[in-house]
């Protein structure tokens, strides 16, 4: 009887728990390490972390957090992968309309317009 009551309480509590509407994963910490250490490995780890956020957000059917597509695009620009960078900038613009002015600025600045 006590075990059933405890189980019911756990189920109720888990139902009440709110999951965040965005998934950041460990991207902020990885960003800090990339800024702090600025080594190829730390930057590669940050890039991998962002890719994980993208795939997990898709799995959860949540939007990718604001700015992350854009920061990923800038990593691609630094690696001279301009076509992919353009693609990710346009994803930022599509996902977050408030980014339109900034994305257009970056497309022009880095000559990524078609």
């Amino acid at each position: 009887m006590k075990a059933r009551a405890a189980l019911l309480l756990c189920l109720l509590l888990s139902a009440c728990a709110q999951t965040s509407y965005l998934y950041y994963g460990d991207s902020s910490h990885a960003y800090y390490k990339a800024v702090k250490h600025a080594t190829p490995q730390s930057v590669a780890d940050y890039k991998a972390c962002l890719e994980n956020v993208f795939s997990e957000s898709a799995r959860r059917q949540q939007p990718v957090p604001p700015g992350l597509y854009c920061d990923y695009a800038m990593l691609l620009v630094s690696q001279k992968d301009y076509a992919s960078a353009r693609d990710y900038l346009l994803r930022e613009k599509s996902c977050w309309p408030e980014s339109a002015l900034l994305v257009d600025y970056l497309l022009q600045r880095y000559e990524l317009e078609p």
Partner: protein
Amino acid sequence: MRKLPPSLLLLPALLLLGACSGIFNRTMSSVYPDMYANQPTSILVLPPVNNTTAADAREYFSCSLAEALGMRGYYILPVETMFNILRDEGLYDERNNDPAVLANFRKYFGADAVLYTVIEKWDKSWFLDSGSLTIQARFALISTSSFETIWDYGSTIRVNLGSESKKFLVKLIESAVKTAMEDYFPNAREANILTFEKALPYGKYHPLHGSDAEKWVNWDKAGFYEIDK
């Protein structure tokens, strides 16, 4: 005369405490009316000002603010991208409160508001079996159209870094190690998330947007909180 039960004697004291708590709290919408009348959707995070001797504090904050704000439902202009632009324009280490500069942030990047952060304290302390990190910071959102402060708050957060072990020697060692560790980023991140949870209204994208106007917030726009690790 019948004696009153002790619980009834407590009642006036409880009522007085309940009334007194209202003196020190007001609703979000009364403390931050501009955040409800003309709420910003997009925020540009400016590089934090570090008034402490902890050299890493600036990076701890600048790398964690976007997540803390994003989770409250605002569009945060990409931090690293914007910091690079500010460096290129010679604005990275400037105060950036000139209305002309703020207007340009709006015109060229679509920022409705900028976030100023001043880190006032980053103090580690350790004694025997307990250690702590005290983080004190002030935040302000400035509108890029009215150039007014539409939201501001100061938080002091003490992160307790002690050990949960019941053995004194283990507790001593664990708390010393926790206090001495070099990467305090998780603490800064948690402190910023907690600060905005306590005092920043939900932004447009948050599922609970508009539901917090009657939520209590400290009338003096400052709070002290503790986090146990």
